[in-house]
């Protein structure tokens, strides 16, 4: 009679071990890693980037008079993208770096928008150097985010 709880415990231990082994083994897209992205983060980020890139591409290349509105719209889209990927980010260093890159971009684009509102187009250009230095595409590549690494191509 006393051996039943022991057998039950042993069975539970075996089942637990099998489950743990099953989760840990096979497939690199499973758990979070220090280099690339977790599966959940990658799918969320890629979907968000696909949508954002399409919306940015649809804005086209603005004429001088439309630069301010273009900047406002882009600012909103990048901010939204940042919020989405930040919410999905795990503890991987590459995905954290990508999220950090977007976080740096948001206030810079806000400054560019303000400069465009004041028709200070030289300042818009100078501030964009800060965006170049982020190398967001490289950060996306490091996080294995293929779509996020692509540059949206304007339709006009």
């Amino acid at each position, binding site marked *: 009679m006393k051996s039943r709880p022991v057998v039950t415990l042993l069975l539970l231990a075996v089942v637990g071990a099998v489950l743990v082994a099953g989760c840990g083994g096979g497939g690199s897209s499973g758990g979070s890693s220090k280099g690339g992205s977790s599966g959940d983060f990658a799918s969320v980020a890629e979907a968000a980037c696909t949508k954002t890139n399409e919306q940015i591409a649809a804005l086209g290349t603005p004429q*001088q008079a439309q630069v301010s509105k273009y900047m406002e719209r882009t600012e909103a889209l990048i901010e939204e993208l940042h919020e989405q990927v930040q919410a999905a980010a795990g503890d991987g260093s590459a995905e954290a770096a990508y999220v950090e890159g977007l976080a740096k971009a948001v206030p810079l684009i806000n400054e560019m928008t303000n400069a465009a509102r004041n028709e200070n187009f*030289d300042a818009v*250009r*100078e501030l*964009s150097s800060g*965006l170049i230095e982020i190398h967001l595409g490289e950060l996306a590549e490091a996080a294995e985010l293929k779509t996020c690494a*692509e540059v949206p191509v304007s339709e006009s």
Partner: protein
Amino acid sequence: MKRLKLILVLGACLALLASVGVAMATTGATTGYPQPRQVVPTTLSAPFENRYVLTAVGSGAGIRSGEMKFEFEEGSSPQFLVGISQFYVYSPTGEIETALFTFYPFTELPGGKGLKAPVLKVGASASYGQVTQDGEIRLESPVGDTMKGTIRIHGDGPWPVEFRVLGDAQSYHGSPPAAKQIPEAEPTNPGWGADASEYVGEYELTNASEDPTAKAGTLGAVIGVAQGLGVNGAVVTGGSMKVEGDPAVATVKVQTGASNREFTLTDLAWEGDKRTAQVHDEGVESPPVGRFEGTGGKGMVKGSLVSGHSLYKVEFQLK
């Protein structure tokens, strides 16, 4: 021997620089210039030995003001002139910079109407130990206290210049007054050359910059738009031009990364190597948003295309 000559020339340059703007005319500031091969009669060169202030200059030269001094090389026989100038020029970003030039060796203009000399760049803008040719100055013999001529610098021009002779006691203490800016004559010949076959066709951009949007991911588009703005010269990473029709119209496409802009150029005009046009950003019928000003010839067109607050430096070569 060559090095000695160079040291002597540089020493003379420094001595001359020190003498420009000095109230009293001095002698003997120029030493070490080698005897030029061509001799200019003293009767022609003597009236040029003076200090001058720039009173008028072609607006395209980008010169705000300046002073100049011509004097005979000390102890030269036969005597020959050496000139030195200190101009205040507008930099591409609109700031005032100092440009130092020497003029040597002088030769006679056809018909003995005046003198010409290579413009040699000295000082901070030249590499250490070098005096490089930057253009040419042509001057008619002074009439009263006025001397007129033309100058080419930075591989551009010529632009008209006018100087006033300064008296021995006159000095601006290194702050000469702003010279009058002479508006440039606008080309009036239609097209971009005497014959349509010289300029009609498809062109490729030959001065493309590195793409600033590469590796920028989702931010690439906004970087492309922003880098394509500004009066200080927008970044152009690619482009093309097509000139067609009668009257000729040019369609210019410029790229900044993935950002594409298209302009239509109308009222193409030329005079000598000068090329101009009106710039439209929404087709021929749209109102002009700026101008194209540049130079051209032999299948090449290069210059500045201004659209609103943006300036694009472009160089095109006929395919």
